[in-house]
């Protein structure tokens, strides 16, 4: 192995041995678990879920959890040429020796990497081809909520937060192993655990028009509806205090402190806003204690407060103040992503951000108030302009704006609204007296393409076709002409593919497998993304991509993910769908409960 490492870029992607890596004797545990992240090391190690589960599994004496990442193409080539099987970083043992492989599904564009990793491990791609003695292959994470497009590849899926359910599965595994039962008996066992979905236990039938007719169980142990798991009290959860410190400069090279789960806001395009409901916070005291321990165990120079909408933490300012007081003398910085910018947070940013490298970020997502009402983004032009005014007066000169194009009901007036808003920000800057502002204004407008996602009120909408998206991008290119404004956009093909796959059903599995066979991998890396190959894969497997991405789905249609229950009612999504069409805003959870259905659990924000 050593001689091969000399030939690849960044060999430390494959060597492990970082500070706080867990070392165990694999022969002394009952369950060997491989946490598989279908992207490179630097991205995987920036993922909080990996850290949480790694820690949780390794706190058990009977289990050893190791990490596996997608090898970069140079390493893959060497592995294939020399018949080296995919291995885990800790023991360097190949995956076939493990009891369970758990993939995390963070984005659809990683699906071909999963197949590539299974292939490199010498494990059959299809669940039905795996035999006794082979590892079980499972998956969880946000994309698992629509497991259908990859249902054939996994033995089972886990819905929702993994802390409890993964431990229950491990217990069941160890018991099953001791009793020396068959593979199918294990699947029957876990199918009874709340939150576990075994796709092979369901048969799907289709109507003549191609829509789904029904899901029929073919095994008595399977559940009709699979309900996501949630953790009731985040304060009593363990947290990965023995935080692995990578040698490589990873994407998020810092301590990540999770303040809460969920988001109170319910922007109608945002899957995260629904699947993680309800909002549950960690107490300020617990967070301060964790921060202290994590810095002590890592020596990191930065703590980032990570949650969906950071400033919605109820005691946000006092927490930030306390952390600054504690850590500033130790030269540890605080980073505050996804902050809603107002005058108080500006002061705070001033305090933590001595170097103004990154600038201020706003995500209005749509250009007019009308369309912002449609998507339920409660951010007004006035909010943005007054925050910009204050920011310019206190020395900021860099503003980043994030928008989406192709949102439901969008017209060219809304696109003109993007142009107008950007121009008004420029005007706001010049309205500030020269002596009070910093020279060199830069306004960056980034426009991504709307992707309708399952478990959002927009799940029934179709996506614009590629031509329409390109025309809209051209409109912005041609109209954002001010010298201070920079326009960023991406080729729409990748967003189109994302929509196709995200809303896919089981018939999509063959297409994904074919795309892999044709050589697709690292699809989220622009340099490898090959739209033509994907289109070829759809054609060869008789999958009509536009059926999934562009078709407007009827409200009464059976959706491919209807047997998954995220605790938010489908009726609520229908209500929100109509509210969107009526341009009616829904208040956030703290203003007024909208009765989404999660309240029946009686926890978190629903009972505050």
């Amino acid at each position, binding site marked *: 192995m050593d*001689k091969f490492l000399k030939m690849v870029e960044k060999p430390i992607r494959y060597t492990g*041995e970082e*500070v706080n890596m867990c070392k165990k004797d694999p022969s002394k545990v009952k369950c060997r678990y491989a946490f598989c992240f279908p992207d490179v090391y630097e991205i995987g190690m920036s993922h909080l879920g990996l850290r949480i589960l790694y820690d949780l599994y390794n706190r058990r004496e009977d289990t050893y959890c190791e990490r596996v990442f997608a090898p970069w193409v140079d390493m893959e080539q060497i592995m294939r040429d020399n018949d080296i099987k995919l291995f885990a970083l800790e023991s360097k043992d190949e995956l076939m020796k493990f009891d369970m492989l758990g993939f995390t599904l963070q984005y659809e564009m990683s699906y071909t990497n999963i197949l590539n990793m299974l292939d490199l491990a010498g494990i059959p791609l299809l669940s039905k081809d795996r035999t006794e003695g082979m590892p079980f292959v499972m998956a969880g994470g946000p994309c698992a909520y629509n497991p259908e497009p990859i249902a054939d590849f996994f033995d089972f899926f886990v819905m929702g937060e993994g802390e409890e359910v993964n431990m229950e599965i491990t217990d069941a595994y160890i018991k099953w192993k001791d009793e020396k039962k068959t593979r199918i008996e294990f699947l029957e066992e876990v199918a009874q655990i709340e939150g576990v979905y075994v796709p092979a236990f369901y048969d799907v039938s289709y109507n003549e028009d191609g829509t789904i007719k029904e899901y029929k169980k073919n095994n008595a142990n399977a559940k009709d509806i699979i309900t996501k798991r949630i953790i009731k009290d985040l304060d009593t959860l363990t947290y990965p205090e023995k935080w692995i*410190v990578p040698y490589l400069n990873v994407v998020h090279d810092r301590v990540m402190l999770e303040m809460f789960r969920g988001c109170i806001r319910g922007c109608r395009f945002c899957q995260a806003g629904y699947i993680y409901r309800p909002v549950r916070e960690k107490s300020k005291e617990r967070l301060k204690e964790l921060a202290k321990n994590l810095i002590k*165990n*890592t*020596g990191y*120079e930065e703590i980032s407060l990570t949650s969906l909408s950071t400033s919605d933490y109820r005691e946000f300012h006092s927490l930030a103040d306390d952390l600054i007081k504690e850590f500033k003398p130790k030269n540890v910085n605080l980073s505050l992503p996804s902050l809603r910018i107002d005058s108080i947070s500006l002061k705070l940013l001033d305090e933590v951000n001595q170097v103004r490298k990154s600038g201020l970020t706003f995500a209005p997502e749509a250009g007019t108030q009308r369309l912002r009402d449609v998507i339920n983004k409660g951010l007004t032009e006035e909010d943005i302009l007054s925050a910009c005014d204050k920011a310019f007066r206190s020395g900021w000169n860099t503003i980043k704006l994030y928008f989406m194009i192709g949102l439901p009901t969008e017209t060219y007036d809304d696109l003109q609204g993007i142009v107008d808003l950007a121009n008004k920000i420029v005007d706001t800057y010049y309205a500030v007296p020269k002596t009070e502002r910093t020279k060199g204004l830069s306004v960056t407008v980034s426009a991504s393409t709307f992707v309708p996602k399952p478990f959002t009120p927009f799940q029934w909408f179709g996506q614009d076709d590629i031509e329409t998206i390109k025309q809209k991008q051209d409109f912005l290119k041609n109209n954002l002409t001010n010298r201070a404004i920079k326009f960023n956009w991406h080729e729409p093909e990748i967003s189109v593919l994302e929509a196709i796959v995200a809303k896919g059903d089981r018939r999509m599995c063959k297409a994904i497998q074919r795309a892999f066979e044709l050589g697709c991998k690292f699809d989220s890396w622009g340099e490898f993304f090959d739209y033509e190959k994907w289109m070829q894969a759809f054609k060869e497997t008789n999958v009509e991509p536009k059926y999934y991405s562009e078709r407007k789905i009827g409200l009464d249609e059976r959706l491919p993910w209807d047997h998954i229950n995220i605790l938010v009612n489908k009726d609520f999504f229908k209500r929100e769908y109509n509210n969107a069409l009526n341009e009616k805003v829904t208040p956030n959870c703290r203003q007024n409960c909208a009765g989404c259905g999660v309240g029946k659990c009686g926890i978190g924000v629903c009972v505050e």
Partner: protein
Amino acid sequence: MIYRMKFEKHDEVKYIGHLDTMRTFTRCIKRTSLPIKFSKGFNPRVQLSFALPLGVGVTSDSEYVDLELEDEVDVIELKKELNSTLPDGFKIVNVIKSENSKSLMSLVKEAIYEIGIEFENDDDIEELVQKIENIFAQEVIEVEKQGKNKKIELVNIKPNILDIEVEVIGFSSIRVTLHCNAGSENNLNPNLVVDKIKNELAGTEIIDFNIHRRELILKD
């Protein structure tokens, strides 16, 4: 207070590049309770200065780093504390209080490397040793080197080689012991020696090679 530390870098961590090694030491020191002295300015840093960067993939018995602390500490304790928090593969072997105000970098004079090379089994090993000795017996030894502007240029490495010895250490492996100039003025990158051998022996397959820095010699 400046403490000069000598450390080893073993196989486990040999692929960690120079910048990553610096970061590893910084964080390691921040995990201890030592009286850290931070630099002044926007981005206060732990004050560490290394002697001579070690190439990626190279192991060493002889690395030096200076650490500046706010107060005086016991050198034995310092060594113990750092070794308990450094990752496996790094080992501090000696610590002294340094009186020398010159930067470590400017003190580097020479280095001794051991280069292990493993050949295909069926090659005549004695003959290979002879060939390699001949290469380095020449008056001028030119190698290709990537210059400042990414251009490949030819350089003569002979003046930087102080001594070179080749010996057989196994059925199909040899060891080249290279004593050469090192530091900011005259420096020889041992990889160039490996490249030279590879080029001259084109046709003979080299299965693997390993570079080890046995000694870094400082000016007194």
